[in-house]
């Protein structure tokens, strides 16, 4: 029974409460960096790391933090993890950091992370919070990788930098900002439809 509950905490973020398609949070990085699958993978790694660890720490200190100043406290914790990620990525993946640009420091204000801290981590024990963070992070990753895949394929005709079909003429607009909004709009409509069934 307990095991079942823990599995639920993890899996709800993947589809049922997917942060992007159903809750519609954390859109700025979703749209800005999904020009290629590679960028999306980099962003996913960073978000999963920050979300999981900030969830764990926030849930660990939930009993000491006064209700009134909880939001500044959460922000400091999240910002610390973002800084750690920034420094690590600058060390190991300098090219990826250039591609992600200002969206790496902006993970601080990604509403998914603050949202999970408020809605879940501050009321729950450490292990469920860890799983919740991991699940939501994975859900976010799946969504942005899907969007990035569609945009990269339609926009450049490539997947992960390799040409797929020779006789396919890509429309560049999908790599540009309008393509991002169009793709997300249609995907959200599609997922709403699937859920209603």
């Amino acid at each position, binding site marked *: 029974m307990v095991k079942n509950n823990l599995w639920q905490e993890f899996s709800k973020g993947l589809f049922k409460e997917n942060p992007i398609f159903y809750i519609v949070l954390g859109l700025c990085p979703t749209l800005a960096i999904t020009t290629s699958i590679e960028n999306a993978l980099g962003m996913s790694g960073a978000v999963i790391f920050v979300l999981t660890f900030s969830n764990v720490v926030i849930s660990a200190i939930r009993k000491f933090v006064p209700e009134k100043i909880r939001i500044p406290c959460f922000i400091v914790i999240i910002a610390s993890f973002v800084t750690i990620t*920034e420094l690590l990525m600058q060390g190991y993946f300098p090219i990826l950091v250039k591609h992600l640009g200002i969206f790496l420091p902006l993970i601080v204000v990604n509403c998914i992370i603050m949202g999970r801290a408020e809605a879940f981590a501050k009321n729950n024990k450490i292990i469920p919070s860890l799983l919740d963070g991991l699940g939501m992070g994975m859900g976010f990753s799946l969504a942005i990788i899907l969007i990035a895949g569609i945009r990269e394929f339609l926009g450049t005709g490539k997947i992960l930098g390799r040409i797929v079909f020779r006789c396919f003429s890509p429309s560049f607009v999908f790599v540009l900002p309008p393509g991002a*909004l169009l793709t997300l*709009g249609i995907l959200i409509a599609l997922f709403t439809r699937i859920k209603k069934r």
Partner: protein
Amino acid sequence: MDIKTILMIIVSMVFINNFILSKFLGLCPFLGVSRNIKPALSMGLAVIFVMTLSSIITWLVYRFLLLPLNITYLRTIVFILVIATFVQFVEMFILKKSPALYRTLGIYLPLITTNCAVLGVTVLNINNFFVNNKPVEFSFIYSIIQGFFAGIGFTLALLLMSGIRERLLLNDTPACFRDLPIAFIVASLMSLGFMGFSGFNF
């Protein structure tokens, strides 16, 4: 300080690199408060105000605190704290001094703390106007202008969007496209329109 650079910052921030439509900063409030024109206008004003003032404060903090102490890697933490405290102060100040203004802006102010456009513009100021950790000439003034006009661009996109969405309500959209998805598609078309500005060069 030449007028050309200033003009370029203005046109770039309002049209070419519009924060919402081409940089995707501040999308959550863009979709959240663009259902009607009136709240959209209030939100826009609050954003212009906070963006301009936090551009000034973060520039000063970066130049006179982080750079001399050589702790620029703490930029993200310091900036978000500065913005959060500043927004809190503004809220208290407005509540005390002008309750009427508070009623218009009030509920939107706390939302601004987590608006990535505000943190975004301060980070952009530092990236654009500091070369090798040294401020370029007039970088303070450029930062203020960039902050202010980024806010104007944000408000412009928000107002246009809310005008369109008010009319969209009267249209017969397919059930699964209602509300958010159709808003995204409208935004996509607007963004396509704004791309027409990208040829401008001074």
